[in-house]
């Protein structure tokens, strides 16, 4: 972390741009050799194999004014983008589908955004283009690696992706002085392992991964062990493509701690799932598209996320959700501000707005995930007590004790675990 150059070496940025331009010009053909040579995909890590020491790269960068020896203030963004917040009253916010309150009459309207726009005069462009952490990363990574701005001024990704983005130096420090409501953050979420003190990320929503089942086609399913081995469920079980949730649940079921485990324990968990896969127990690995199958009964039981199932239960009250006694995984999605954001201050005002208990309550009432904002429950007790008293949305102390966050992984661990997990999924 500390030896990492906060600014992306211009050598790298220049190289990436050159390749792209070559492509467009079609000059690659004329000099194939040069093309091939220039074609390497550069590391996103500043201390990459090109070995360009930060000092030399910053000196070569200095087309313009300030290339002070060692760039130590991590907040100075590489692109040196000026914050246009005060003159350009807009902000672009990328998030996941169905992750914000919606006007019951018009699905394109979000009442809380309207309130924010009215209160601050800042126009919000809300884009639901984050469907999968890895895919979103694949989309923004080349742009950020080249030191350019992505469309979003603020976006929402899961804990481990925040850790990865921080490791790569793609995020900006958040100015807490602009977010007085930050004091409402649930204290449990303040000193998370990947970002103690929440310098570069602030929680948006949290949720559990547990087990959902359809009582019309199966008897109660209480544990991961039953999900993976009960012959009555053969071919009617799905697991989540999110490696941390599926493997976290299995690790916990085996009696291990998913926030601190060894390679051997992980291998044991993989072997357990592999056995179920080989036996034909597992039908498919899914994102949140298990919903349809679970309701129709094609899927008898599956690993599932709380918010999804609570939303499904609104139309299908018979569906059941179980947080396994041996433990469930707890994840959070977080606001982060990428380098190159031109509306950083507006983004911070936006975060501050959503940390008001009343606004957080409004969002929780619709999205049904766990709000990180203290006071949201009290606010919601007045307007919609049924949601406020739902233990899956406002979990009790006892439930929270069973919930565990998956441990932070190094790049090497992540690659190995992902490869092992992909094999389970048949590719």
């Amino acid at each position, binding site marked *: 972390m500390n030896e990492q150059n906060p600014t992306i070496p211009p050598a790298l940025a220049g190289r990436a741009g050159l390749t792209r331009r070559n492509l467009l010009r079609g000059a690659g053909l004329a000099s194939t050799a040069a093309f091939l040579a220039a074609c390497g995909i550069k590391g996103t890590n500043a201390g990459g*194999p090109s070995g360009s020491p930060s000092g030399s790269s910053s000196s070569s960068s200095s087309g313009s004014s300030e290339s002070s020896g060692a760039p130590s203030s991590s907040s100075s963004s590489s692109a040196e983008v000026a914050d246009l917040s005060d003159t350009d009253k807009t902000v672009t916010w990328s998030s996941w589908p169905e992750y914000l309150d919606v006007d019951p009459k018009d699905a394109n309207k979000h009442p809380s955004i309207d309130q924010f726009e009215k209160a601050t005069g800042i126009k919000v462009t809300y884009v639901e283009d984050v469907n999968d952490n890895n895919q979103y990363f*694949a989309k923004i990574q080349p742009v950020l690696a080249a030191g350019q701005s992505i469309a979003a001024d603020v976006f929402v990704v899961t804990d481990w992706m925040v850790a990865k983005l921080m490791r790569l130096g793609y995020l900006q420090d958040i100015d807490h002085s602009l977010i007085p409501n930050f004091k409402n953050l649930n204290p449990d979420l303040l000193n998370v392992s990947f970002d103690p003190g929440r310098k570069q990320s602030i929680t948006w929503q949290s949720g559990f991964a547990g087990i959902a089942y359809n009582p019309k086609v199966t008897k109660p399913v209480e544990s991961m062990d039953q999900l993976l081995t009960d012959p009555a469920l053969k071919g009617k079980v799905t697991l989540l493509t999110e490696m941390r949730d599926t493997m976290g649940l299995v690790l916990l079921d085996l009696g291990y701690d998913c926030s601190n485990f060894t390679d051997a324990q992980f291998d044991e968990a993989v072997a357990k799932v592999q056995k179920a896969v080989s036996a034909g127990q597992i*039908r498919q690995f899914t994102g949140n598209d298990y919903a349809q199958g679970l309701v129709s*009964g094609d899927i008898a039981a599956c690993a599932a996320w709380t918010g999804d199932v609570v939303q499904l239960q609104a139309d299908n009250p018979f569906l059941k959700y179980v947080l396994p006694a041996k433990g469930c995984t707890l994840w959070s999605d977080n606001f982060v501000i990428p380098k190159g954001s031109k509306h950083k201050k507006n983004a911070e005002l936006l975060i501050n707005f959503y940390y008001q208990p009343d606004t957080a309550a409004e969002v929780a009432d619709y999205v049904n995930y766990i709000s990180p904002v203290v006071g949201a429950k009290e606010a919601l007790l007045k307007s919609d007590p049924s949601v406020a008293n739902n233990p899956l949305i406002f979990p009790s102390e006892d439930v929270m004790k069973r919930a565990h966050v998956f441990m932070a992984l190094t790049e090497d661990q992540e690659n190995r675990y992902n490869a092992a997990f992909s094999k389970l999924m048949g*590719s």
Partner: protein
Amino acid sequence: MSIAAALPAGGHHAPSAGPAPSSRSKFTPYFLLLPAGLALIVFYVLPTLTLATTSLQTGSLEQGYTLTWHWPTYGEVLSQYWPQFARSFGYAAGATILALLIAYPLAYTIAFKAGRFRTLMLTLVVAPFFTSFLIRTLAWRQILADEGPVVSFMKATGLMHLTDALGMTQGRVLATGLAVVIGLAYNFLPFMTLPLYNSLEKIDRGLLKASEDLYANSWTTFWKVTWPLSLPGVVGGTLLTFIPAAGDYVNQQFLGTISNTMTGNAIDSLFLQQRQYPQAAALSLVLMVAIIVLVSVYVKRAGTEELV
């Protein structure tokens, strides 16, 4: 893709056999080919070259990739993913045959029997394109659901025992190989039907009359006259179905299960989940080459000169 590009090129030979071209018009064909040629270079040749170099690199996303001419990657992906390869081509072949069996009678009916309903029927053939590919594929989940009509019918008639014994189903249709083949055949059916219709519709009705006059019954007429004349459509349709089907992964993802993934799924996982760019690139190239080889052999055997 290269085949598709080669097709129009072959067709363009005829006009150049006109009267001796003036020096100015000699370049006209090249000018006319310029947009397509540029598009081919920018969107096909260069990305393929990038893919080729990526496949020979080693490293990781955060450490960076360097070109080390690491050929063993190809061996690794082949030994690891050959089952996916086999399934890709098996399913694509199955889907192509199924689509041909459905599309030929359909195209025949539209071309010879539809009369004034011809336009309507042709519109209906392409009508599925009015909705999203994903929605159409997801709809098959409902049709093939475990308690759905198709499964009930197959169980009632005992057909399920047969398909189970053949390893195509597992007491269910959804999340099996059969469902993937059905999904592929369905999604690419219009690509089969339209070329077939095109070549059937062009057949000179006088030839059929002549066949009749020579005392051929309708079967003989079909086998000796109609079928041979429709072969260009058959070749075109099978190519347009087989090539995309072999690379498809969406049908597998929605209708298949973890034990029957195809090459496309492996590439998707390598690129987006595991972020092993070299392996993903190598696998993509191998798939591309395999398809090109297969298709070249097929086209050669079928006879290119009929591909008008």
